[in-house]
């Protein structure tokens, strides 16, 4: 797993409203345009993530045992 890539991605998500909007609209295109290189598993994860969820909605989905 390429943690630097995920951290860079999440840093930009947190700090750049325009990038956040691009990610919500089309995450695969936004990542490709950013030049961030993801592994096969990270790309698969990216496709499954619902970037429209707010932080609160995301935290509400966490279960006790995973």
């Amino acid at each position: 797993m390429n943690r630097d890539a995920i951290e860079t991605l999440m840093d930009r998500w947190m700090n750049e409203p325009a990038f956040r909007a691009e990610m919500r609209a089309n995450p695969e295109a936004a990542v490709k345009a950013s030049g961030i290189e993801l592994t096969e598993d990270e790309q698969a994860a990216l496709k499954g993530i619902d970037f429209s969820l707010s932080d609160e909605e995301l935290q509400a989905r966490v279960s006790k045992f995973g």
Partner: protein
Amino acid sequence: MTKSADTAVGMTCETASALTSAEAFAQENTPTEAMRELLALAFAGFRSAAAEMDAECDGAPFVHLPLNVYAAVAGCWEPALPVAAATAMLYLGLDIFDDLADGDLPAHWTGRRPAEINLVAATLLSALPQLAIARLHAPADARAAMLQEIFEGLLTMSAGQQQDLAFAGSSEVSTEEVHASVNRKSGAEMGMFAALGALLAGAPAEQVHLYREVGRAFGIAGQLASDMHDLFVAERSMDLANGTRTLPIALCLDRYAGQEREGFIALLRSAQSSTSAADRMREEIKASGAARYCAFVIEVQCRRALRLLAETATIGEPRHRLERMIASASLYRGATIEKGEPR
């Protein structure tokens, strides 16, 4: 997953059977009445937690992971029940050790000395499961391989737990170190459970390796999700109270610098003894975006588990069950299965 008729708490049939079998084995092989009483207390106290895990994970993984892997290779799960009883004992022993380390013992231990509880955990972890494996009706080489799997798994987990304890209260913990610790603790645990099912079923070495890695990725995802629950959802964060350094905290420590970092560390220290400081700490970590980072990492591990599962020969219902279990760790559950690897 089948609902059990013999338990009032809604446990699955498989989990109820494994726990009943494990308790009977422990009672039959423990030489003194006093020790049998302590073990009975441990099993009785564990049943509600096991039922809760059954509901949340689409089958408690410490039972359903070895059973489903066995079924994936051999076609049915029933012959693997003694292995699931052994993994249930291992899980229970680890759970008791965790509770002791965290100072978070459940009410059923009230009035018992920590040394006695420690003894129960040690017995469940290092004597009974190995005896159960040694007595399996399986070829000698399969039993030897399973015992080796347990010993190697426990050694790895022990090293992970030591790292976890060493990080407690520290401000010099990186995300890399937390990842390594979670991999050794929870990754190795679930990897071992999955591998035991494959070994009993007589799977070839490369298939055993794949199932171990499926379990490892699932174990990492589940532990990270559980750590998120403690920090973001639980009424009181035991990790903050104990100074445990989980991934969201390590991420903030990695990111912050200068005065911001000093302030964060001071608040972390206060959060160990002050409820209001712990509340402020939780709000700060929530605002940092750490939850989204952790959710992504969890999703990556779930996808890895699904990809590796697709590389095994697993088909049919056991595969669906394993997929659902893996997806239970994801915060994007629906999409994890729908958009997972093609069947």
